[in-house]
Structure formats: C-alpha cells, structure tokens
C-alpha cells in the first residue's frame, strides 16, 4: 500500500485517492495555435524511472488535488504539496 501524505489530511492510503498523472506537463495558453505544443501536452511524457511529480485527487478525503513526489522504481513517496503551488515553478497558479 502506498501512503500519501495529504497536506490537509496527513498520511492516507492510496485507495482514498484517484490518480491524475504527470504533474509537470503544462497546458498551452488557450490562444496558443501551435499544434505541436498541444500534441506534447496531450500525448508525450518524460515517463522517468525514479523521481516523478504526479497528481492525485483525494476523492475520499478532502477532495483536493495534491502533487506527490514519488519514486517510480520503488514507490517510495518523498512528499506531497497542494497541487498548483509549484505550477511553473513560482508563477502564480
């Protein structure tokens, strides 16, 4: 069982969460007309073996999205913050 430390609720079982995928992909601006940027956003992923920043939705808890840093080779969770706090590394979400 993976234990996810929700910033609001503390350590909770993975079964309380729904997986939301890679948290590092950035949606292009709505008026961005370049199809390759949209293609990258929708389809391509780094898919690292090791540290991975990813989104989980605390569906059976506080119902907030959290960004978890987890090792994909060992499943060890390094930490979790409220999703959006790190968007664009310092930009206002």
């Amino acid at each position: 069982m993976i234990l996810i430390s929700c910033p609001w609720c503390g350590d909770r079982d993975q079964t309380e969460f729904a997986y939301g995928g890679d948290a590092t992909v950035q949606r292009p601006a709505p008026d961005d007309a370049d199809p390759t940027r949209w293609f990258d956003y929708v389809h391509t992923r780094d898919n690292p073996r090791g540290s991975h920043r990813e989104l989980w939705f605390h569906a059976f808890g506080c119902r907030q999205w959290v960004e978890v840093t987890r090792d994909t080779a060992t499943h060890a969770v390094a930490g979790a913050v409220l999703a959006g706090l790190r968007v664009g590394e310092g930009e206002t979400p």
Partner: protein
Amino acid sequence: MQRYSAFSLARRALGGHRGWEPAWRKATLRGAYDVVVIGGGGHGLATAYYLMANHGVARVAVIEKGWIGGGNVGRNTTVFRSNYLLEDNIRFYEHALKLWEGLTEELDFNLMVSQRGCLMLATSLGEMNALRRRGNMMRLAGTDAEYLSGDEVRREVPNVVGEDDGLWPIYGGLMQRRAGTIRHDAVAWGLARGASARGADIVENCEALDFLWTGGRISGVRTTLGDVTCDKVVLATAGSASLLAAKAGLRLPIESHLLQAFVTEGLKPLVDTVIVWGGPGHFYISQSDKGGLVFGGDLDGYNSYAQRGNLPLVEDVISAGIGLMPNISRLRLLRHWGGIMDMTMDGSPIIGPAPVDGLILDVGWCYGGFKAIPAGGWLAAHAAATGSPHELAPPFALDRFARGRLLDETGNGPVPNRQ
C-alpha cells in the same frame, strides 16, 4: 542445431536423457552487425527471427540486459486472441494468430498453443450490445466470432456461470474459438532457438546504454559489453521504451504501468476456455495445464517501473473474480507477480520507423503485447530490412498521435492508466 522428434525423444530417454544440446546458442557480442535488436523479449527475438527467415538478413544480434525470458514475455497470462474492436487492430492481431497456428512446427519447439477459445462475458444489456458490435466488427474484418445467449454461456462454461448466475446476471457472450493460451516461456525459447539456428547472436547480460551516431543517423549501440556498429537498430525494450528513446532524442506518448497476475493451487479441470469479463469488474481467467487458475485484471493505475504491485489491486481483482465465480473463493494463491507495461496514450502499440534515421520502434506493448509477438516481430523486421512499412503497419506509426488518427480501443482518451 539438434532437431526434436518422437524419435529423438525416445533415443535420449534410452540414454538417460544425457546428450541433449542447449536449445539455442549463447553468443558473445561482435563489433558489427546489419541489425542490432535491443531487448530479448518476445518482440526482440521474433524480430531477429523474421529478419533472417523472411528477409535473409545475415548478421543480426539481440542484446538483452538480463536473461532471455526474464521480461514480460515470461510474466504474462499467456492469452492470445484477435477479438478486438477496431479493424486495424483485428487485422494485426489476426496476423499474429495465424502465425501462432504454425510456429510450433516452424520453430521445431512445442509452444503448447492451445486453441481453447476465448469467451467474453456480458453481465448487462449494455455490455451485450458492445460485444455484439465487437463481434460484427470481427466478422467484417474476416475473423471468427460467435454470439452466445445467456443459456448457451451457462451450458458452455457451467463451472464459471452457475444456474443462478452468482452476483451478476449473464446476458450472453462472444466466443472466439481460435483464441486460447500459449506457454510463454516456450515462446521465448522457441524464438531464441529459431533465430539462433539461423545464425543470430543472442547476447544476455548486455545492456544498451546509448546510441552511436554518424552524421545525424544512428549507426550503432553503446552497451555494457562495448560498442557495436550496425545499419539499423530495432528498439524492442517493452516496459522501458521511454528510457532509451530519450537517448535518441524522442519523447514518446507512453507511461509505464504495473500489471499483476495470479496463479492458484492446482485443481482438476474447471475452466476449459479463456474467460474475459470487462463489466462492472475487470477479470480474466484460464486454467494452466498443471491445473492452476491463472487470472488478472486491471493495472495498478500509477506510473511504475517496479516489477511488483500493491495489495489494493490484489483485492480489486480477487473481488471481481469472486463476484463472477463464487466457487473459487476458498482457493489459495500459489504465486502472484507484476510486470511493467508501456501504456500508450491510445492503448495500441507503436511499430515502424522512428523519426530518427537508423532506428525502428517495436514498443508501446500494453495488454496485447504477448499475443502480438509474431506480428510485431514480422512488421518490425519488414521495416528494418526493406526500409518501408509492411501493409499492416501504417496505422501503428508513431505519428498517428500528432495526426490525431488514434487507435483507441477503449475510447478512454489519452489516460494511459485507464487504457
């Protein structure tokens, strides 16, 4: 290489089974080849085999970072079938199915291909309509599909669906009689034998680390056993394709995910076909020749390269199984394990030339990667040897994602953990 026959078996038996030669030759890496195949799973070995058997390519190497049979080719639940929904997929998996029907003789290695059928169950009217549509698509694409009513299902598999249907009412099913199971280790060994007999070098404990380049074109591979040059490289590293692709400057539409499988203690014959249930629960089951029930279900559902899963999914699969077949609730599990599947954004594989000169992809092997082995190898070998795609290959090209021509069987969209 020693041939296998009833006669050779009898002769060795009289000699106390001494004097059997290895089924395939362990090679050491040479400096140059026509084609280097990275990954000694089913796809890599099939690619090497067909490069030599179909195209007469002379110098082929398969490099495998672990050992032959240690990857997903030896971790799957051995089901093969071509009962897909989309025409391009049906035609591709049907090509594989036809090849499986002849490979035991061709390779002189008993793959234990058992065409025991695959029965998909419907436990609601909606599911039954979806199965009917699938069956229609299969028949239009020229493969076999048989619609069964609820009563016919009960007669066909009385030990799976009892008189009172357990938790779920059975509306009917879709049967593909030519589907079934194959012994997966024999596939790895049989293909290794076939490729090796034709002169391919199969090199174990040899990890590809990076590519060698000549003027913007891939011209070799850097391995833990040294550099090797070649005209073409085929990437067949199911379960970790993104990692080496990144070294070629490619970012693939793939996430790696965990799939678990389970085997119970041995039983007398209970399930004589492959049952697939994609209803309120996802569960599929068959019985091995040793009597163990082999079953599985969904992915664990989060990116993973760990070849072991977590308990919530164990509970999920087993509760779906017991919901369908209450009679298995007291069985003990002998083993369960996990493997890594490279889930693409549409759930279908990527086969064909990469947008990098000298590199051919045979990757993105989701749930269907075992049954696809001969067809994947056939198409990858064709691309590597002729430089042009096989007639079945264009729908599986990497550029389909950018062009918006997806092969999304489940209709789930670009969410790999739901594909």
